[in-house]
C-alpha cells in the first residue's frame, strides 16, 4: 500500500512536470505526438477559463481523480465477495502451504524464489494465523484461519496494478482516451480479477511486472534530464522493481530482458553520439550497471537472506541443502547426536556435495535397460532407502559386531550395503541410462553374493574440521568413492532420470578422474552407530553465498524436471497458441454443485482486441517501412519516436513474455500468458491512439464516441462474465449461456 501511494504521489509530480516540459520538447525530437493533444488542450482551456472553472479543475486534476476512481473500482472487482469460497482453491494448496512454512519457520523447498511466498507468509502473520493448516487442495478452511484477510492482502496487489497501468500509459504518451482504455482493460479483465482473488503469486508477479514497466517508461521520459535526482530515483526504482519481479518468479527475467534491451539500445545510441564526452558516457554505463544489475541482484539476494533468516527450523526441504546447512537448522537430526567418526558397521546417509546434490538412494525398482539391476539414484526426500552400511570388502573378514571397532579411513577399500534391500553398491562396464559415457551404478547381490565390483575406495578430498585425513567424519569430511576395479568415480550430476526412475537424479560412475568435480564429492550426513559415543559435528556454519548458490542450482534442477509426460495429459494444461485467442479457460476447483466455482477466463474483447492489435501493429510498421522504401517520408522523427517507444517496446515485451513458452518444454497453463497480456493491452492502447489521431483532429466527439463504445464493451463483457470472477454458486448449468465455445468448460 505504502509503495503504491508513493508512486501516486510521484506520479502527480511528474504529471505537472510533464505539462511544463511538453511545450519545450515540442520543438525537440519528442514533441509532435504530444503536440497535438496539448495544443487542443490549450484551445480548450481558453473558453473554459471564462466560464465555470469546475470542468477545468476536473481536467487539471484528471491525473489524480481518474486513477482514484479506477483504483476504487479495482478494489471492488478484486475484493467483492472474496471470502465466498471457504475451501482451498487451486494453487492456494501450494502457496498457502509455503506461507505456513514461514509462520512455522520450517525450511521447505520450492522452485520459485521466496519473495512472493514470504509476502503470503506475512499476510498470514497479519491475519494472526499460526501456520498449522496444511492447505490440502479442496479442503475447508478452519475457523481460526482468516483466509479472507490473506486473500485481501493478495488482491491488493492485483488492484494496485490498475493505477500503475494508468500512469504507465500516460508515460508512454498515449492521449487521455487511450490511457483510460488501457486502464479499463486492465481493470475489467476477468482473468486478472479472478487470479488476484486467491492466495497465489500471480497478483504479485503482475504487480511487479506493471511497476517495472512504469519505472522503465518514466525513466525513459527523463532521459534528457540524465543524472538529475529524479532520474536517479527512477533508475533505482526500476532496479528495485526488477529485483522484486525476479524474486517472485523467474518469469520476471523476461521483464528484465525488456529493460535490458532498452538499455542496450540507449547505450548504443549514446556510444554513437560523438558530442557526448567520454566521462559522461562512462558514467552512463556505470549507473546502468549499478542500477539495473547490481541493485536487482542485491534485492534478489536479500530476499534469500530473509528466507534463510526466517526459516530456522528443520522442515521438509532440508535434503535439498548441504549437510552443513542442515546441521544449523533447529530440530534437525543431521549432525545431532551422530557419532563423529565413521566405523565399519555404521549406518549412514551419503550426501552429494555438488550444488543441488541429494542423498545416495536405492529402491527395489530395477533399471528397465542396461544391466536391469536395482536402481541407484540421488534423491532429496529423506527415507530409509537412503541408509547405507559401511562394510568391509570381500577380502577382509566379515563384519563382526563383537570384534573391536575399526574406523574407516582414507584409501580403505570397502563395500556399501543398502540397508533396506541388503544389496551392495555396485558398478560395472555397462553404460549409464542417461549419461551414456559413464558406467551404470546399481545395487547388486548381498553380503555373501557378489564380486569385487562391489568394492569402493575411499579418497578423502578435504575435511572442514581437521587436517587428519585418516578418519571419515560426519558432515565435515568430503570424500570421493573410486570404484576399485574400474577406477571410475561415483557421481550424481543433476541429470534427471526418465519417469521409470521417478525423475530422481541419475547416479553414475564417471570414468574421468576430475578431483575438482564437486558432483563426485560426498559426505556423511546422518550417522548411526550404537557402539560409538554421540558427538556434535554440526557446529560449523555454512556461508550464505554458498547456501544461496546451492538453493538456486537446486531450483533450476527441479525446474528442468518439470517436463510434461506425453502420457499424462493434464486436463488443466493448455498450449501457447490457445492463449492469445482465448481458446481455453481453466477450472480452478471442483465442479460440484455445492462448491463455489471459479473459472479462469479472460475478457474476450481484451484478449481478441489485444491480439488483433499486435497484428495491426505489425501491419502498421510494415506499411510505413514499405512506404518509406518507396520514397514517402510521411512520419516526423517525433512520430517515429512515438512508434518506437510507445508501440514497439510493448510489442517486444509481449514477445519476450510469450515466446519462451512457445519454446519451453514444460507444462504450461493459461495464467502463464498474463504478463504477456499486459504488453498486448499496452499495444492495443498504442494502436487505438494511433488510429484515432485523424479522428481527433477532425471530430473530437466522434473520437470520444469510438472510445466510449469500447469502454462500454469492455465493461459489459466483464459484467457478463462476472460470475466466473465473483464465484458461481449452485448448479453449473445456470451459466450454460456463457459457454460460447466448447473449449470453455464452464459447464459440463
Amino acid at each position: 500500500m505504502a509503495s503504491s501511494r508513493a508512486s501516486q504521489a510521484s506520479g502527480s509530480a511528474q504529471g505537472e512536470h510533464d505539462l511544463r516540459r511538453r511545450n519545450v520538447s515540442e520543438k525537440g525530437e519528442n514533441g509532435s505526438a504530444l503536440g497535438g493533444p496539448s495544443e487542443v488542450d490549450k484551445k480548450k482551456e481558453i473558453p473554459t477559463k471564462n466560464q465555470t472553472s469546475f470542468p477545468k479543475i476536473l481536467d487539471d486534476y484528471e491525473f489524480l481523480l481518474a486513477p482514484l476512481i479506477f483504483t476504487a473500482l479495482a478494489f471492488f472487482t478484486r475484493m467483492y465477495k472474496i471470502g465466498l469460497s471457504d475451501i482451498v482453491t487451486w494453487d492456494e494448496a501450494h502457496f498457502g502451504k509455503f506461507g505456513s512454512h514461514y509462520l512455522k519457520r520450517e525450511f521447505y523447498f520450492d522452485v520459485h524464489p521466496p519473495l512472493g511466498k514470504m509476502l503470503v507468509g506475512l499476510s498470514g502473520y497479519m491475519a494472526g494465523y499460526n501456520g498449522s493448516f496444511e492447505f490440502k487442495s479442496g479442503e475447508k478452511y478452519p475457523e481460526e484461519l482468516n483466509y479472507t484477510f490473506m486473500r485481501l492482502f493478495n488482491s491488493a496487489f492485483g488492484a494496485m496494478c490498475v493505477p500503475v497501468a494508468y500512469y504507465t500509459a500516460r508515460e508512454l504518451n498515449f492521449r487521455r482516451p487511450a490511457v483510460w482504455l488501457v486502464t479499463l482493460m486492465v481493470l475489467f479483465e476477468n482473468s486478472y480479477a479472478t487470479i488476484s482473488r486467491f492466495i497465489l503469486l500471480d497478483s504479485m508477479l503482475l504487480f511487479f511486472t506493471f511497476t517495472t514497466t512504469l519505472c522503465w517508461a518514466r525513466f525513459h521520459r527523463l532521459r534528457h534530464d540524465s543524472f538529475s535526482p529524479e532520474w536517479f530515483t527512477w533508475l533505482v526504482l526500476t532496479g528495485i522493481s526488477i529485483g522484486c519481479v525476479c524474486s517472485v518468479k523467474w518469469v520476471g527475467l523476461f521483464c528484465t530482458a525488456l529493460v535490458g534491451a532498452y538499455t542496450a539500445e540507449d547505450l548504443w545510441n549514446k556510444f554513437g553520439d560523438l558530442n557526448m564526452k567520454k566521462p559522461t558516457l562512462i558514467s552512463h554505463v556505470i549507473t546502468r550497471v549499478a542500477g539495473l544489475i547490481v541493485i536487482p541482484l542485491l534485492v534478489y539476494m536479500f530476499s534469500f537472506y530473509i528466507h534463510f533468516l526466517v526459516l530456522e527450523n528443520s522442515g521438509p526441504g532440508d535434503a535439498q541443502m548441504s549437510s552443513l546447512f542442515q546441521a544449523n537448522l533447529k530440530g534437525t537430526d543431521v549432525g545431532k547426536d551422530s557419532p563423529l567418526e565413521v566405523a565399519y558397521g555404521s549406518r549412514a546417509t551419503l550426501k552429494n556435495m555438488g550444488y543441488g546434490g541429494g542423498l545416495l538412494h536405492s529402491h527395489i525398482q530395477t533399471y528397465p535397460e542396461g544391466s536391469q539391476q536395482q536402481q541407484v539414484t540421488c534423491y532429496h526426500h529423506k527415507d530409509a532407502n537412503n541408509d547405507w552400511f559401511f562394510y568391509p570388502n570381500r577380502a577382509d573378514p566379515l563384519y563382526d559386531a563383537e570384534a573391536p571397532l575399526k574406523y574407516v579411513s582414507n584409501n580403505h577399500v570397502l563395500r556399501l550395503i543398502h540397508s533396506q534391500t541388503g544389496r551392495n553398491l555396485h558398478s560395472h562396464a555397462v553404460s549409464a541410462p542417461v549419461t551414456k559415457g559413464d558406467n551404470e551404478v546399481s545395487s547388486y547381490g548381498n553380503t555373501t553374493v557378489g564380486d569385487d565390483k562391489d568394492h569402493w575406495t575411499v579418497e578423502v578430498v578435504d575435511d572442514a574440521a581437521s587436517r587428519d585425513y585418516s578418519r571419515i567424519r560426519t558432515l565435515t569430511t568430503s570424500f570421493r568413492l573410486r570404484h576399485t576395479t574400474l577406477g571410475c568415480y561415483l557421481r550424481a550430476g543433476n541429470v534427471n532420470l526418465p519417469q521409470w526412475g521417478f525423475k530422481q537424479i541419475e547416479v553414475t560412475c564417471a570414468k574421468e578422474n576430475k578431483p575438482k568435480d564437486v558432483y563426485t564429492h560426498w559426505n556423511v550426513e546422518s550417522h548411526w552407530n550404537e557402539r560409538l559415543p554421540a558427538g556434535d559435528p554440526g557446529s560449523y556454519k555454512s556461508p550464505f553465498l554458498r547456501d544461496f548458490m546451492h538453493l538456486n542450482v537446486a531450483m533450476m534442477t527441479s525446474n528442468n524436471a518439470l517436463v510434461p509426460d506425453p502420457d499424462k495429459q493434464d486436463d488443466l494444461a493448455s498450449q501457447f497458441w490457445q492463449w492469445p485467442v482465448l481458446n481455453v479457460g481453466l477450472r480452478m476447483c471442483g465442479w460440484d454443485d455445492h462448491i463455489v466455482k471459479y473459472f479462469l477466463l479472460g475478457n474476450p474483447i481484451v484478449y481478441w482486441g489485444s491480439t488483433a492489435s499486435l497484428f495491426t501493429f505489425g501491419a502498421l510498421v510494415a506499411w510505413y517501412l514499405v512506404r518509406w522504401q518507396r520514397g514517402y517520408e510521411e512520419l516526423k522523427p517525433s512520430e517515429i519516436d512515438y512508434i518506437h517507444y510507445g508501440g514497439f517496446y510493448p510489442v517486444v515485451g509481449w514477445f519476450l513474455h510469450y515466446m519462451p513458452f512457445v519454446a519451453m518444454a514444460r507444462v504450461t497453463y493459461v495464467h502463464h500468458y498474463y504478463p504477456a497480456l499486459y504488453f498486448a493491452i499496452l499495444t492495443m492502447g498504442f494502436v487505438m491512439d494511433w488510429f484515432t489521431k485523424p479522428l481527433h483532429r477532425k471530430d473530437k466527439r466522434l473520437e470520444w464516441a469510438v472510445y466510449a463504445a469500447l469502454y462500454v464493451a469492455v465493461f459489459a463483457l466483464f459484467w457478463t462474465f462476472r460470475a466466473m470472477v465473483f464465484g458461481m454458486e449452485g448448479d453449473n448449468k445456470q451459466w450454460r449461456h456463457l459457454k460460447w465455445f466448447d473449449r470453455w468448460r464452464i459447464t459440463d
Partner: protein
Amino acid sequence: MSSNSVRHRGGGKEKAPATTPPQNRDAKPNGSVDGALDKMPQVVKSEWDYKLAGVIITALAFVTRFWGIGHPNEVVFDEVHFGKFASYYLQRTYFFDVHPPFGKLLFALMGWFVGYDGHFHFDNIGDSYIANKVPYVAFRAMPALLGALTVPTVFMIMWESGYTLPAAIVAASLVLFDNAHIGQTRLILLDATLVYAMSLSVLSYVKFYKMRHEPFSRKWWKWLLLTGVALSCVISTKYVGVFTFFTVGSAVAIDLWGLFDVDRPQGALSLPDFGKHFAARVIGLIVVPFLIYLFWFQVHFAILTRSGPGDDFMTPAFQETLSDNIMSAQSTGVNYYDSISMKHKETKTYLHSHAERYPLRYDDGRVSSQGQQVTGYPFNDTNNYWQIMPQKVIDPMDTTENEPVKNLDFVKLRHLVTDTYLMSHDVASPYYPTNQEFSTTDLESANGDRFNDTLFQVMIENGKTRQDLKSVSGHFKLIHAPSRVAMWTHTSPLPDWAFKQAEINGNKNLQQSSNIWYVDEIPSIPADSPRLVKEERKVKSMPFLAKYFELQRAIFFHNNALTSSHPYASQPVQWPFLLRGVSFWTQNDTRQQIYFLGNPIGWWLASSLLAVFAGIIGADQLSQRRGVDSLDERTRSRLYNSTGFFFLCWAAHYLPFYLMGRQLFLHHYLPAHLASALVTGALLEFIFNLDPEGLDSNFIAESTGRSPSKSSSKKGAGPAVGVEGNQIDRTGKRVVVPAKQRMGSMVGLWAASGGVLAVVLFGWYWFLPLTYGKPGLSAEQVIARKWLAYDLHFAK
C-alpha cells in the same frame, strides 16, 4: 544526419554498394565497355591458374573419396538404416522414416542400376556384405561421387564470388582434406547428398545474383530455377534443408528490399516491375521446389505398394492401399458370443485369467479384493479366451443372437475356462494404488448386484459411431462402464503369486495411447465358416495429397519424438571445437576402427576465423559508431555482403540446432562446416591482402567486369572477343583482377595459404587410419590420436 545514415544502411545491404552505380551505369552502354575490354585479354590469360587448380582439386577429391571404398566390407553405423531403406525400395515394401524420400531414392536407384534385389536388410552393424552378396561398393560410390563433387563446388563458389586463387584453394582444401566430410561421404548415408545439394544451392544463388543486371534473361531464369531445384534437393533429403532455404531466403529478401527502394542507384523500379521480380522469385524459390519436393513423395508412394514394416505408423485407411497387408487380410468381424483373445498393442500380451486369486495383502500392506486374478500373458493359451456377451441379463445357453459388435457397445466378457465374468471395481491394483483392480466374478453376481461392474464399453480408436469391431485391424480401448477407467497393462511383472505375469489394471487416464487393445484371434469360428471366406480383396486407392499429409504429419511427430539418448550423441556447442567424434565401426581382430571425426586442425582454424570475422564486424561497428572509419567502402561491402553471406550460411546451418530437443550427432555440423570453410578462405584473403591499391584495382575490375559480360554475350560480341567469347562471358562475371597486377600484394596471402595447407594436410594425414578404417593401430598409435580425449577404441 542520423536519419540519413539510417537511410544509407537500408541501401547498403544491397550487394552493390552505393558508390558503384555510376560506373555500372556508365558501363552499360556498349561504348564504355571498351575500358573494361582493355583488361580482358589479361583476365582471360590469368584464368588458367583457376582451372588448373580446379582440376587438381577435383582429381584429389575423387582420390580421397574413393580410395579403399570397399573397406570395411561390413555394415557400418547408420548404413543399418539407409541401406535397409534402399532394400525396402527395391522390394517395394512400405517403410517409415523421418527423412523425406529423395536421398534414399537415390540409393535405391543405384541398387536398381546394378541389379540388386534388396534381399539383405542391413540388420546389424558388422554384418558381412560379402557373405550376404550385397553390391555395397556401388551403393557407397553414389555418396562418394557426390562428396567428391562437393569439393569443386566449394572451389567454384569462391571463384564465382571473386575471391583470389589462394583463398579459393584454402576453402576447397578445408573440405577436401576434411576427415569428417570424407568419412561421412564414403558410406551409405544421406549427408553426402545433403551437403552437395546445399553447396550447389549456394553456388547457384551466387551465379543467379551475378546475373542481377540482366533480369529475366534466359540465364537469369536458368540460375534462379537451378537454385530452386538445388534447394528442393536439400529439403527433400533432410529437413535441415530449411536452413538452406533460410540462408538463401534472407539474401533474396535483402535483395528484394533493395529492388524496392526508390532511391535505388540503378533507378527506381515501378511497382509492376517489382511485382514481376517478386513473383519470379516466389515461383523459382518456393513453388517449384515445393512441387519437386511433392514429386518425390509421389515417387515414394508409387514405388512402395506392398505392405511392410512401416504399416504400423499409418492409419488403417492408408494401410488398405498397400497390397498383402496383414491387417486387412486377417481381419474378420467380431460377433457376440464369439470367443476371442485380446492382445495389448504396446506390450503384446494377451488378456488372461486363471483360477488363482489375488493375495489378501500385498507387500506394502495394502489389501486386495482377493478376487480371481486377471493378468497379461504373452503366450497363446486357452486361458486367454473370452466370450464376448451383449449388455443384458445373460443366459449362457442362449447364443443364438449373432449380431456384430459395434463401436461404443457395452459388452461383458466371459472367461471360458473358469466360467467367470471380467469386472473391475474401486479396489487398488497390486502395483498402482491409483489404478483399479481387475478381477472376475461368477454368473450369478454378473447378472445380479455386480451387473454394472461387469459392463465394459468398446471404444474403437478413430472409429465412427456404430462401426463394426474387426479383429486385428480394430484397435480399441475397453472402458469400464461405471468407473470410466481403461483396461491397461505395463511391463513390470507381478510377483510370484501371479507367476510373473503382467498386471492388468484400470487406468484413469483414458487418453493414454497405451490403453489400446485389439482382438487377435476368434478361435470359436469353425475353419469352414463362411465368415472366414473373403472375396478377393481389392487394393484401395487414396488421393495423393491425403497420403502425403498423413505421412508428413507422422514424420514431424516422430522426428520430435527422437529424444532417446545415444552413447555418441553430442551437443551443438561441442561441434565447432570438435570435442568428440562418433565411433562408426570397430574390428577387434585387426584393431581397425572407423571413428567419425573432422580434421581437428581444419575445424579449429575455421572456427577461430569465424570468431575473427565476428570480431572484425563488431570492431568495425564500434569504430564506425565512434566516427572512425578504418575500412574503405569497397572492402567493407565485400566483407559484409559476400563474407557476411557465408557467415549467415554458417549461422543458419548451426544455431538452430540449439533449439532442437532431438538426438544430435557431429555429422549435423557438416553443412555448417562447409560454410565455415568459405568464411575461412574469404577472411584469409581479407587479412593478408589489405593492400588498398590491390583492392581498389580488384574492385574496379569487379564493378566494370560485370557489365561487359552482359554486353558481350547479349550483344553478340565484337570480333575482339569472339573467339573466346565463352571465356570472356565467364571471366567478365568473375571478379578477377589480373594476378600479375596483384602479385606484389599476394605474396603474403600465398604464404599464409601455403602454411594453412601444410598444417591441414598434416591433420588430415594423422587421422586417416581412423577415417578409412585401416590400417589397424597399436595402442600407442591410438593414444597419440586421442587429442581431446577422443573416445577411441583399442587404446589399451
